[in-house]
């Protein structure tokens, strides 16, 4: 079952993890600073519209990259690996939003890394299914 992961898959997965982390952090920033306590009608100034447009662009890039990753690898392979974005969000939340990082959280993160390491050592693509379609 051991299989060397192609560079293309590694690059796309890394990009996907980066985009998901960026999306979650930016979404939180928008929720706290722009969308909070405003109704839809109040979001009319150019600054708010640009900020929401940036969110839509990141979402679009993430979706396009996700579709590409889905072509390259099994869903059961990539879906758990994407959870590594939790770690980047945690690190960013600690430095930017000054959220606490507890021992429990560090242990949980290490277990996620171990799980991702185990999954990355399995075959990334079920060739049998590809050849059928």
């Amino acid at each position, binding site marked *: 079952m051991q299989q060397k992961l192609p560079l293309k898959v590694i690059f796309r997965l890394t990009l996907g993890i980066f985009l998901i982390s960026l999306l979650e952090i930016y979404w939180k920033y928008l929720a706290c600073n722009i969308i909070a306590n405003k109704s839809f009608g109040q979001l009319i100034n150019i600054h708010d519209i640009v900020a929401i447009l940036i969110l839509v662009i990141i979402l679009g890039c993430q979706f396009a990259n996700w*579709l590409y990753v889905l072509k390259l690898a099994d*869903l059961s392979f990539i879906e758990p690996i994407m959870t590594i974005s939790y770690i980047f969000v945690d690190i960013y939340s600690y430095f930017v939003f000054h959220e606490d990082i507890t021992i429990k959280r560090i242990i949980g993160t290490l277990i*996620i890394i*171990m*799980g991702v390491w*185990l*999954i990355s050592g399995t075959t990334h693509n079920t060739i049998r299914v590809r050849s059928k*379609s």
Partner: protein
Amino acid sequence: MNQKLLGILCVIASIVTETIGQVNLKKSTLIRHPIKKRIVMVFGLTLMLIEVFIWNYVMQILDLSIAYPLSSFGLIVITLMSKFYLKEQVCLRRWVGIFCVLFGGIIVGSS
């Protein structure tokens, strides 16, 4: 119906819509027929968008410490669907890895 029960039901609904959405997006990459491919992709994308709205509602009515660990169970459902519907090969090592990610996610979410 109390808020917590409604929240848990919404998490289950978000897991179901995300799973069906993801599986259909993956399925669309395997289909060669262009029209069928687009139909399956749009169906998957629509479900993913519905999931975003359900999740936003969950955020409003349920604590994150409950919502995140519960949503981690979606990994198991997606893997089962991948195995039985998409016919992916899921070996023991991957199952162990998925349970590690699930367990880690529960710890991180509840901390």
